[in-house]
């Protein structure tokens, strides 16, 4: 249901998305889901205001976001995968180092690397988005 209430919730989000230099913003709630994507990102998307007008219509193939299972420091594999790169099979993209243990971050299948949310050597928390893969 796209009613007045939702419109009131969407507008500030759309403005925040436009003003901050965000590439992608996803909001999940019980009864609705909303995603903004910057047209300039590797994933072609409609401009933010248009997306804002259609909160329920999530793209049919939303990229899968890989998040960190642990708290630690992310280290990219060499050579590091870059945005827009085609990934074949189940590939190691990085590992998150926790107390000397390397926790691999795998692509879990083929796809295109749509976004890299972190930099090499960055501390990450549980649930932090690391990569997005377009299947």
């Amino acid at each position, binding site marked *: 249901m796209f009613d007045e209430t939702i419109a009131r919730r969407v507008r500030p989000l759309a403005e925040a998305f436009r003003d901050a230099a965000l590439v992608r913003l996803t909001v999940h709630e019980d009864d609705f889901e909303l995603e903004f994507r910057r047209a300039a990102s590797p994933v072609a998307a409609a401009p933010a205001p248009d997306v804002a007008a259609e909160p329920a219509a999530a793209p049919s193939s939303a990229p899968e976001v890989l998040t960190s299972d*642990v*708290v*630690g*420091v992310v280290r990219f594999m060499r050579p590091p995968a870059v945005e827009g790169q085609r990934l074949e099979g189940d590939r190691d993209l990085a590992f998150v180092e*926790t*107390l000397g*243990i390397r926790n691999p971050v795998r692509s879990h299948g083929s796809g295109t690397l749509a976004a890299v949310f972190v930099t090499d050597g960055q*501390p990450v*928390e*549980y*649930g*932090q988005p690391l990569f997005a893969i377009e299947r």
Partner: protein
Amino acid sequence: MFKKVLIANRGEIALRINRAAHELGVQTVAIFSEADRQSQHVRFADEAYCVGPGPVVRSYLNIPNIISAALISGADAIHPGYGFLAENARFAEIARDHGLVFIGPTPSVISSMGDKATARRLMAEAGVPTTPGSDIVASVDDARAVIEKIGYPVLLKATAGGGGKGMRAVYEAGELETAFATAQAEAEASFKDGRMYVEKLIIEPRHIEVQVLGDEHGNIVHLGERDCSIQKPSHQKLIEEAPAPALPDGVRASLHATAIAACRAVNYTNAGTLEFLVSGEQVYFMEMNTRIQVEHPVTEMVYGVDLVKEQIRIAAGEPLTVTQAELHPNGHAIEVRVNAEDPEQNFAPAAGTLGRVEFPGGPGVRVDTHVYGGATIPPYYDSMIAKIIAHGATREAAIARMERALSETRIEGVKTTIDFCRDVLRDPAFRAAGVGVEWLKTDFMPGHHALSA
């Protein structure tokens, strides 16, 4: 002094530690589960790391993620609060091995005193009277063999237990099997440690505990006692007070002396509490909590000492700021635990979103809480949402002040223990002082149910 302390806890105690650290000029790092993202303990910390999803085993008990958060944030110490990993010697050891100071006793003291069966043996050796009971019982059959010697009723207790979790009173043989299984399962779920022991249940005892502080320079002091006899049927404390009322001076002095002797016997450092059952003139050592306790504010109000700051200073190698000669109780303090529970449904916990929230103020009233209007109470954690503490020149004045404070308190959206506790405060037996740990269940609640029905 430390530059930065990681607080490995949530809720009001995380906020309490955050306040103490900030007042000492120490930066803070919060950890939180996905269910606590909006919590005040996250908001007031200088930085914060999500360490896992809602269930405690994957977040607040997730040792690798917590230690990792301490390391990547550059913290030099970890304060464990109470519950969760506060009495986990392995956690203290892992922290130390990674160059972090654990704000608590040494790992070896935690494992000997925090492990309740070992503590009882050590205390018995040091001449401290203990209740008849067992070492660790591996199975329900072992428990049965012990009970044949000491007789019913008994308490089954988890060696890692606390807050009434992993504990069951058993009055006859037919109840044993179920009670053992449920207590052990609860201990496994809450502490990742299902080891159990058996203790003789002393009839109508009072729960009286002594607060101690020890530094790394050999100074040990006690800060008097607390009476925590007002307990729910699950043995979780509901109302605590300091000093213990209607206690013969000889018993009081003996409790204090015993606590100091016990600490000296193990070279105890940091804050700790020795819990005793007191029945007439008889005193039995029950267990030692090697951590700060929920009810520490009543002691703080009466002695004017900030126990959490002392903990941090002690861990940083500083001497105690007070000597025994300087410690004198002033007046009386009472704490009421405000739990999101329904007292009419055997204190069934309630989760949900709070509506309007108003806490009391005014002279002699302290509120330790992490909730606010509109806050969510996640289903994963302890149901305590606030502690209200009232101080007065006498016990009567403290009770009157607490009644006034509770009358100002409004919490909408969930059932709470506020009205129930007000009724307890008005009860003539409570006013007369000195009731035992079973009083609430066996004397107060039946009449209370009849009245409110």
